[in-house]
């Protein structure tokens, strides 16, 4: 026994445990950088075995202290330091076991008296809207069906005497709900399989997009028809848009035309400005006006207050510039943009002469079969059968084109992005199942349950924030998962939330909430302002401003963190002891002896 204590209390063990902890924590923080904070908390810091490792440290310090008993005079510093650390760790343990932490989201004018905690409960809602919560950690949950619960009309002033539903045929009974499986981040996953020759035509293509520069590596399915997802023929992979469409020929592009219309609305002349053989001056019928020095800029842009043609910009912006000269040789310079007819009203330059005619400039926008998209777009074009072509473009510029070969990878022509078509189908069949979401991103909490009394007695998937109906012989109950709540000994009302900015900026200087705290039992009512860094304290609870919402429809809401930390006094006393002890140890009379 003594030898074990000696081993556990030795400096060698201290160093061993320190090094082990260091390595463990390096791994944990690296994993956190890759997989995110919730992952690290779940996989390391909140686990039992991690508690055990910290407990080993406690045991090591405890044993090393016990070993020095009875204490000699030169060990006072040691004793104070190490018992301080023991107290600190004990306090941490108490907080871990008995601490309360949760969130309260309150909209302006609302009152709440419970906090939301990190766990979840199974909620069953009965026809009378009564809700019963049960602990999700139990494998088997019994839900009591009472007459009242099954009576949908009960709570609202019954005009007729209460009709007891199922009082004779279905006596009050318990219904079993068995939890079969829990998936924390579940999403509906689409299954795409090849249909047989009789299956309806439904094209589908599976593509993997890869880019190192954009840190993208995603595989997606594009599907022509999917009853659950109407946008299944389009998908985003980071900034890259992927889409599929049937083979339809685009209409030819419209020519850029300058229309000259007289006051009566009759067209005098239509000039195709892309025609290179235009005369230097063009008479406008009998109006006495002449257009001179007409210039056409398909890619017009303004640089240093001058209009220039800038095809490198690749932004189609057809414009014409010309001088409008009247019979008295008064010349007015005119600029017309095909896509911005209102430009003129912003820069009024119309003289009396020019007002005699209306000049409109029209040019076809690039024929967009695909919706306009500013980024990289990869389209897959399919025909009646199963032969596919691909086309990549960036804004208006086509980059690459070719036939799709399943299994081959093709550079998209922008950045280092490349895409690989895995398979194509002309008669795809779609089905859905519930599975953990990919890369653990998104998804909701889901539980698979069986209810033997239900008809049909199937596996039901129950989700957070969505009610799953379960039909029983006696009536229908609705199951869902809801965050675990904990009642507080007080109610909190948010009167007003304010975000105070630094002058002249949108940057917050402070978040403030005016609240009223009411404790009906102790007959306490407090009116306070909770400010970041200045929490409201009541009965061992601390209420902090931790976040806020400003929803244009729902209004403003404050998110408060409410916590109770019973270990704090222990931690503080332990810390002070440890520091004082260390100072005494290093600078007190003992140190001189050691040196």
């Amino acid at each position, binding site marked *: 026994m003594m030898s074990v204590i000696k081993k556990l209390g030795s400096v060698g063990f201290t160093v061993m445990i320190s090094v082990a902890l260091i390595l463990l924590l390096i791994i*944990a*923080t690296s994993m956190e950088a890759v997989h995110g904070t919730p992952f690290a908390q779940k996989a390391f810091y909140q686990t039992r075995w991690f508690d055990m490792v910290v407990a080993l440290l406690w045991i090591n310090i405890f044993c090393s202290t016990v070993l020095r008993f009875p204490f000699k005079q030169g060990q006072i510093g040691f004793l104070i330091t190490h018992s301080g650390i023991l107290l600190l760790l004990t306090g*941490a343990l108490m907080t871990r076991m008995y601490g309360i*932490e949760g969130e309260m989201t309150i909209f302006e004018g609302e009152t709440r008296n419970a906090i939301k905690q990190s766990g979840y409960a199974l909620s069953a809602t009965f026809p009378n809207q009564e809700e019963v919560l049960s602990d999700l950690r139990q494998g088997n949950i019994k839900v009591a069906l009472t007459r009242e619960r099954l009576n949908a009309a009960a709570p609202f002033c019954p005009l007729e005497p209460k009709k007891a539903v199922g009082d004779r045929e279905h006596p009050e009974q318990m219904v079993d709900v068995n939890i079969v499986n829990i998936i924390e981040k579940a999403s509906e996953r689409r299954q795409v399989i090849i249909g047989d020759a009789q299956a309806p035509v439904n094209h589908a293509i599976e593509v993997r997009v890869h880019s190192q520069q954009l840190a993208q590596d995603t595989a997606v399915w594009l599907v022509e028809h999917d009853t659950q997802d109407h946008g299944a023929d389009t998908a985003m992979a980071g*900034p890259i848009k992927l889409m599929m469409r049937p083979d339809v020929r685009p209409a030819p592009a419209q020519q850029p035309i300058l229309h000259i219309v007289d006051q009566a609305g009759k067209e005098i002349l239509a000039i195709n400005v892309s025609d290179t053989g235009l005369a230097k001056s063009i008479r406008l019928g009998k109006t006495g006006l002449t257009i001179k020095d007409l210039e056409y800029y398909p890619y017009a842009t303004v640089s240093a207050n001058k209009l220039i043609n800038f095809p490198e910009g690749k932004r189609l912006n057809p414009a014409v510039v010309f001088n409008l000269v009247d019979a008295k040789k008064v010349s007015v310079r005119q600029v017309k943009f095909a896509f911005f007819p209102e430009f003129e009203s912003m820069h009024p330059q119309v003289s009396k002469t020019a007002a005699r005619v209306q000049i409109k400039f029209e040019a076809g926008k690039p024929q967009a079969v695909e919706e306009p998209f500013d*980024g990289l777009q990869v389209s897959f074009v399919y025909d009646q059968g199963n032969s596919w072509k691909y086309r990549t473009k960036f804004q208006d510029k086509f980059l690459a084109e070719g036939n799709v070969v399943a299994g081959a990878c093709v550079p998209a022509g922008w950045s280092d992005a490349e895409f690989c078509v895995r398979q194509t189908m002309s008669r795809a069949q779609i089905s859905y199942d519930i599975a953990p979401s990919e890369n653990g991103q998104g998804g909701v909490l889901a539980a698979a349950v069986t209810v033997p009394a239900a008809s049909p007695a199937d596996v039901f998937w129950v989700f957070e924030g969505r009610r799953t109906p379960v039909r029983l012989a006696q009536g229908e109950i609705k199951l869902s998962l809801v965050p675990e709540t904990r009642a507080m000994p007080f109610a909190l009302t948010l009167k007003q939330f304010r975000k105070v900015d630094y002058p*002249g900026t949108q940057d917050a*200087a402070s978040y403030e909430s005016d609240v009223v705290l009411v404790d009906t039992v102790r007959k306490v009512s407090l009116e306070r302002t909770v400010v970041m860094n200045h929490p409201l304290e009541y009965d061992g609870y*601390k209420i*902090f401003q931790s976040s806020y919402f400003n929803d244009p429809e729902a209004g403003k809401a404050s998110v408060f963190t409410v916590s109770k930390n019973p270990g704090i006094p222990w931690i503080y006393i332990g810390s002070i002891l440890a520091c004082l002890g260390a100072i005494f140890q290093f600078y007190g009379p003992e140190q001189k002896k050691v040196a």
Partner: protein
Amino acid sequence: MKKIIFAAGIGLLWVMVAYPVLASAKPEGIAIQHHGRIKPFSAFAQETLQLISGKDHWQGQTATALFLTNLDHPQRFLDLPFIRVDHPALRKLLSLPLESGNVSYQQIMSAEETLLALVRSAADKRAADKRPSAIEQQAETVYQRVTVVQSLFSGASITVIPAERVWLSPFQSAEAPAEAFKKLVHALAVKAPGCDLVVQQWIVESHRSISKAVQFRIEMERIYYQFQPFYLAWIFYLGGFIFLLPRQPWVRKTGKFLILAGFLGHLTGIILRWTILLRPPVANMYETMIFMDLILMVTVGVFVIVRKRPAFLSSGALVSALIMLYARLLPVDQSLDVLTPVLRSSYWLTVHVITIISSYSLFAFAMAVAHRHLFLSARGKPTPHEEQISADTILRLLQAGLIALGAGTILGGVWANEAWGRFWGWDPKETWAFITFLGYMAILHLRHSRRLNDFALAVSAIFGFLLVVMTWYGVNFVLGRGLHSYGTGSGGLTWIIYFLIFEAVFLAFVFINKKSNNKGR
């Protein structure tokens, strides 16, 4: 008598440096509201130019001159090739000239859609708690630069007309001062005779609606920006180190003189920042590095003067200069900024940060002494007495550092408990502080149980400091997650890798030489 001459010399030196700065009351002093604070135009211009181009000057012009003269024709901002775009792959995507060199707004905006596509994709990733790729992060930075140039072009950021809460820009307001400012800008642009008077008049006019205290702070900030105290300090520290190398007494005296002058500049800089911001300058990476450096120099001073160990002065000065250099090299924000709500008005936070950086400075000094010790022992020089002094100093520094680190970490917990009700949450910064604590604690336990000799103690002091570097820089810049994100940034890793390579080479050199020394004996 000697001391009086010494002090007078240093005073004269600072007057010589400071006089031209103090004597000028030029356009630099025009008050402007920027990032929630009233500051001198020079501060606004330098911060903005630094953000756009990564430089303090532009083609021989100061930032103030560049901005004020171009405001006469704001569209010139769109053609000025002064926007920095670092990433070669991004330059290629934006079809910019591939050879390095800054580019103009127009050049970038011809590929606006590409830039926006990247920025949007980065935002999507952040929303999904993923990290954007390097090229996307760079695109975000470039986009920020572009928006700043846009606000110069539109004049939106030139908020120089005093008003109740939100100051007005002469380029977006029709009030009388607007015309006056435009005239001022024009006079400066064409170097009209008497433009000094116009500026003087503007300053007098606009100062009427500013309190005396704010006027004083504007003046202090103008001096801070013109005088660059930390830049001078690092040069002086480095100079001091070099002058302390030879054995001639007068050269060494000059070295000491330079270090003292550097320290005074350093202290002045900290006091200026404190005065301007009305808070201790310990709220971001740059400020903590500079403040930690000051504490380091105070510690060096204590060891040199009180404990009579003059041999450590040069090591201290060198490390101090290097930390200052790193504060300039790393991509940390040097501007004087207002605080986010969570950092405001918190007594515990200030105490926490100052205690933590005190521990870092003690560990840094221990590391410096360890290098000196290892270098001398590799060359077989130190006498046993010298060796003992080095080891004793390292041990003392590590002990004090460990107490400060432990206390500082706990104070951080106290602050966290006060600010959001959680003492400890295994946030990466907390975790790494704990790792560092465990590391140094293990070293001290091994030393105490006589399992580390002097040589091993010195080597451990160097390894321990690598943990500090990881906690301080690495958590924010390499791991890039967690609550302490107000210090977050990216980049600068190259410089840290150079440091690691240097340490590896140094230790290899020491081990090889020690082996051959041992054989020789």
